[in-house]
């Protein structure tokens, strides 16, 4: 009576193995780029945005007739999978994209943690992977040759703000930092602590909050108790909406309040309303910028216009990052004149890509080091660039009420 069950198991296993083995489509004629995305789960807001960036690039690319390689034109096919905001699944999908879908190149999963995990697979197979949204130096410390990051190091966000703050007012002495207990926000918070200490500021409060926190009032009340001059909160948009709202509830004020990542998003300004006033933030891209570029888009403003036409809203930095890694990969392939991974990797390494996102070159670890992410301040619900001088649209103001 039991042996029948065994037969069934053996049959099912055999069937499964053969079904899995049958999923092996042949090589396509076009250039295939794989992109694991977090379309469901906690990171789905970001995943959706990244996808919009990729798709805008692809659409413009197809209008322009594809990528020019060695006298011919090749179409690009993007292969998406949803990794459900689950890092192991992102890694699994990266491997699937390489082995099973036979993609030529990879765009990384969202954020630092998943990019780091997926870079192991890309390195294993020698597939160049462009990390659209990884900014923690820890991602790039493994000596990998196939990982190229669009974002500059987290310290390039903290340093300019710390400079601005100390130059603006010598009275600002006491810093409070509240960070989400997660790879990127923690790494960012550590950079802010370093930048502050390097300038002789006193870090009077440094605490972490758990992922999924629904109430910041206790931490904020404590911050109020230490009377800081500069408050730094790191986290994602939902954390920062809630934290800003509760700061207002508790009438917690300070000359400078910096929040990353959030205020550069339009949704953040909409959701916080009047409370957005004078919040400082930094990010690698903003639609107020205007770079002339030699890519598909021609200039930042043209990119913004095309984006608005397609999606009806201004692009934020995540959306722009998706399109930016697209144009960088395109330029590298065109320079190499082929889709040969070694040739493209070599071209990526040479850098000097003039894109709507800025001039992109990669440092020795693969992390971009060729541009300075601007610092912004929300003034009258508008995002003003307050640093660097060259692209400035407003003056840094003190006082957050």
């Amino acid at each position: 009576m039991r042996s029948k069950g065994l037969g069934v198991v053996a049959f099912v296993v055999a069937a499964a193995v053969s079904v899995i083995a049958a999923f092996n489509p042949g090589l396509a004629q076009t250039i295939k780029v794989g992109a694991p995305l977090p379309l469901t789960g906690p990171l789905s807001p970001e995943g959706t945005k990244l996808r919009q960036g990729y798709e805008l690039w692809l659409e413009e690319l197809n209008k322009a007739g594809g990528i020019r390689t060695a006298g011919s034109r090749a179409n690009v096919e993007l292969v998406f999978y949803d990794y459900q905001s689950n890092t192991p699944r992102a890694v699994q999908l990266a491997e699937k994209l390489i082995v099973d879908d036979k993609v030529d190149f990879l765009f990384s999963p969202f954020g630092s943690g998943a990019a780091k995990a997926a870079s192991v697979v890309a390195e294993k197979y020698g597939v160049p992977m462009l990390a659209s949204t990884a900014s923690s130096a820890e991602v790039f410390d493994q000596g990998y040759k196939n990982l190229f990051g669009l974002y500059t190091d987290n310290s390039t966000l903290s340093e300019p703000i710390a400079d601005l703050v100390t130059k603006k007012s010598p009275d600002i002495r006491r810093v409070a930092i509240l960070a989400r207990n997660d790879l990127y926000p923690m790494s960012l918070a550590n950079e802010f602590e370093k930048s502050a200490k390097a300038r002789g500021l006193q870090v009077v409060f440094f605490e972490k909050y758990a992922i999924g926190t629904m109430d910041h009032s206790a931490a904020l009340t404590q911050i109020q108790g230490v009377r800081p001059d500069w408050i730094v909160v790191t986290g994602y948009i939902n954390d920062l909406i809630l934290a800003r709202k509760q700061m207002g509830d508790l009438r917690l004020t300070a000359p400078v309040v910096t929040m990353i990542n959030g205020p550069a998003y339009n949704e953040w300004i909409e959701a916080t309303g009047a409370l957005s006033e004078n919040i400082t933030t930094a990010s690698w891209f903003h639609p107020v910028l205007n770079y002339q570029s030699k890519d598909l888009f021609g200039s930042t403003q043209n990119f913004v216009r095309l984006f608005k036409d397609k999606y009806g809203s201004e692009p934020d930095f995540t959306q722009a990052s998706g399109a930016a890694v697209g144009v960088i990969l395109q330029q590298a392939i065109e320079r190499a004149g082929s889709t040969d991974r070694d040739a493209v990797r070599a071209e990526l390494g040479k850098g000097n890509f003039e894109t709507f996102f800025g001039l992109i070159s990669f440092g020795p670890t693969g992390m971009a080091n060729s541009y300075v992410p601007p610092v912004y301040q929300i003034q009258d619900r508008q995002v003003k660039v307050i640093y660097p001088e060259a692209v400035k649209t407003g003056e840094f103001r003190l006082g957050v009420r």
Partner: protein
Amino acid sequence: MSGRPAVVQDAAIALIAVTAVAAVAVLGDNYVVRLATTLFLYASLALSWNLIGGYAGYPSFATAAFFGLGAYANGVLQAAGLPFAVAWIGVAGIAAVCGALLGFCILHLRGHYFAIASLVVGDVLREIVNSWTSLTGGGMGMNLPLIAFSADMQARFFMGGFFGLALAAFLVARLIDRRPLGFTLRCIEQNDTAAAMLGADTRFAKSAAFTIACIFAGAAGAIYASWVSYIDPTDVFDVLYSVKPIIMALLGGIGTVTGPVIGAVVFLGLEELFWRNFLETHEGVLGLLVVLLVLFLPDGIHRLLTIGRHRTWRAAAS
């Protein structure tokens, strides 16, 4: 029920399985190997959950807790300088002790109370790992040493590891199924009080089933951590590690030896099918499947395959 045919059958299963796995290792590409690895991981978790959840009827949601515990215990032991093989065995020991202790604490609870208590254990462990930064790296995660094989060899090595675990879980489940312990667990599932009144040491039986389930979940977590070589608390304590084995066991047939294996195969197949074809709605489709399963096939696929066969227990009474 006598010894010899069982031995022959066990050998036959092992032979078939080893052959199939060897074929995948030789013929499959790395993605197929990865799928097979995931399959064995799933099967290990489903088989071990089935001991406490299926046989004894205690709705345990502690799988993720022990999976995460195993992953981090492995990380900590290896960080302390132990080689991975020793660390894995150490993890199994740790999981056994923790499982026995936890079982002692929560197995007197029943129904919803047991379910919640077992669920909360995972939350508590995750929070501890999150806050014990000096040992675990906290929210920044933890890197494990890579095993110095080539990429292809690594993939096959871990497939082999999980296969060994799944096979062990299967054989243990089979052994328990045929021994008085399995019978006792079924009696507990049907009527806890009556079993105790007849002299059954229900506490021992439940604790044994729970502890064995915890050992396998912990070992799975340990091998998993070595496999992915980067773990963070939200990933390894993900409640889905508790929920998926339950769905697999339900899918295949709860409280049977082969059910969880069938469930793992079918579940993995469906998962693959869904996210290939439904980019943004695969979760909803999976949900629909779960709902249909519960409504129309509560006894699982195993039941479909065994209709009309003589059953000594669990006949169509309900």
